[in-house]
């Protein structure tokens, strides 16, 4: 009696730019475990804050401070910049708020919802890698869980108009972060990541190709089934994530000899919440962030349930 059922976990978005705005629409349209309590930016005239107000969401232009003032907020999506996130992270941690880092700062572990979220469920700061990382590391993981991947190479192609100045000024960062994640999360012993920006009009959808070189004998059908199964899982939270054709084996001359190479081609079409649908590279970040937040919220609620 009088006991209010704790049904949702309060979340906030830090950063009222395009990424923050698309994420806001995703939280609002899903009946998940989070309640969007605040969108905080630093520019009172930003379009993102106006859009949040129009949806009846509380906003602030006092950035991090507004979030720290609200002790009920448990989950914070940081959609600012790597530099800002490095400054924000310590106080979020001190206040016991989970930070879902959408920037390249990578203070906390890399997470991909279908691969390793459970391992990091108690972590207070997790990082979403990069668009290419979210798209390709689960594919490498799917191969590696059946046949050990010696070398993986991932190519991420996105429409030029969907690539922001942050990425353009620091291509090295994308290359290194994504390759690291292909090893750490995907499980490949060696890895390369290559981005391509294509300016075709009308803009192209995001595509990813994965080449996974395997040195041992393996069951081709089991590898392909494993890939198809992880794609089905991912498409449950990113509806436009799909295979282009059935993955196949191609023999390639490599530094380790002529070896079978699993070739996986993937396309990501966005949901069109705020970004245009071709910008699957942006949508995959907000959709993955939403999924991570929702799973954490469910975990948080479950833990509360148990302690009661």
């Amino acid at each position: 009696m009088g006991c209010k059922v704790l049904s949702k976990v309060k979340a906030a978005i830090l950063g009222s730019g395009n990424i923050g705005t698309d994420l806001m629409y995703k939280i609002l349209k899903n009946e998940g475990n989070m309640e969007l309590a605040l969108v905080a930016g630093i520019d009172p005239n930003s379009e993102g804050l106006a859009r949040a107000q129009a949806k009846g969401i509380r906003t602030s232009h006092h950035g991090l401070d507004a979030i720290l003032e609200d002790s009920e907020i448990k989950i914070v999506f940081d959609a600012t910049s790597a530099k800002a996130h490095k400054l924000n992270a310590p106080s979020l941690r001190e206040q016991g708020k989970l930070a879902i880092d959408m920037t390249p700062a990578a203070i906390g572990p890399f997470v991909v919802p279908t691969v390793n979220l459970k391992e990091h469920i108690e972590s207070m700061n997790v990082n979403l890698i990069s668009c290419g990382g979210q798209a390709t590391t689960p594919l490498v993981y799917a191969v590696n869980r059946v046949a050990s991947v010696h070398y993986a190479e991932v190519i991420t192609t996105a429409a030029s108009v969907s690539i922001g100045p942050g990425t353009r000024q620091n291509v090295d960062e994308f290359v290194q972060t994504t390759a690291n994640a292909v090893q750490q999360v995907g499980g490949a012993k060696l890895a390369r990541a290559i981005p391509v920006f294509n300016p075709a009009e009308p803009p192209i959808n995001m595509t990813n190709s994965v080449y996974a070189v395997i040195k041992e004998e393996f069951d081709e059908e089991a590898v392909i089934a494993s890939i198809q199964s992880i794609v089905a899982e991912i498409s449950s939270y990113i509806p436009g994530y799909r295979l282009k054709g059935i993955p196949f084996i191609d023999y390639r001359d490599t530094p380790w000899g002529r070896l079978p190479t699993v070739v996986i081609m993937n396309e990501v079409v966005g949901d069109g919440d705020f970004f245009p649908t071709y910008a699957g590279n942006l949508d995959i970040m907000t959709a993955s962030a939403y999924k991570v937040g929702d799973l954490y919220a469910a975990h948080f609620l479950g833990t509360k349930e148990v302690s009661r």
Partner: protein
Amino acid sequence: MKIPRLTDTTLRDGDHAVSHSYTPEMVRTIVQNLDEAGVPVIEVSHGSGLNGSTIQQGFSKYSEFDLIKVAVETAKQAKIASLFVPGIGTSNELRQAAELGISILRIAVHCTEADVTEQYFRLAKELGLEAVGFLMMSHTQPANVLVEQAKLMESYGADCVYVVDSAGALVQSGVRERVSALKEALSIEVGFHAHNNLGLAIGNTITALEAGADQIDGTLRGLGAGAGNAPTEVLVAVLNKMNLDTGINLSILMDVAEEVVAPLMQTPIVIDRDNLSSGYAGVYNSFLLHVRHAAEKFGVRASEIMEELGKRKAVAGQEDWILDVAVELAEKKALKV
């Protein structure tokens, strides 16, 4: 007309044509001859630029850094250049090549994406390198867009910007418009890099010179990606006939082209159906051998793949799209049967 600076890129563009199989011995011999002939710049690296040894672009048989080292040690007067494509190479490889003693870095991007080159131009200049911008697939954009992009490179510190006809798709009027627009808008040098898909590599290069180009490229016997480039020895012969004395020794070039480079060719570099369809559709020349591989694997025609890649406006570095197109064409074919 100004006497141009000639860069020989047999050991970079030609790397595609030999499936990245150059050995240190080949590099030594070719550099020795080019250097002795008086060619001022010799480009050496993976065909797709530093760190290009990948599945997507093709693995190199020997480390390109070993090849660059040999080239630097061998050249007495010539400067050694390397190609760099942001995203394929990173600052690490750039620094490594600089440490090995290259003098020139040629930074290549698709001709609408110059803003990704800033960090690399700044680093190259910081390391004391001459930095040249390469606007690839220049046929896809009008002169005014190329001017905007070239000006960005100039603002990052470029010493020269090239109009690069990666697909061999430009005809002479297109070359003239683009090169003269850059000459007019920039205060730095302008270059032109040709491919021979339409049989215009030499003609287009001469047109570029007439339009004011300061730097031009060639490869011995035309040994370059796809239909190959303007043959260096032919260029020198033509320049001599035009009374533009580069000081380069023609007979050494003819000998090395005939005796050293021609035997390296896996297949003759001619304008066959694959190369003509590639140039006609405006497809990046380095795709050729990858297209042939995919055509064979999936039982479709290389020229069909070229045509579809042109429609999709594939850019440099998109070899994976070749497989995607081949799979789709094969599926369509299966449906028809």
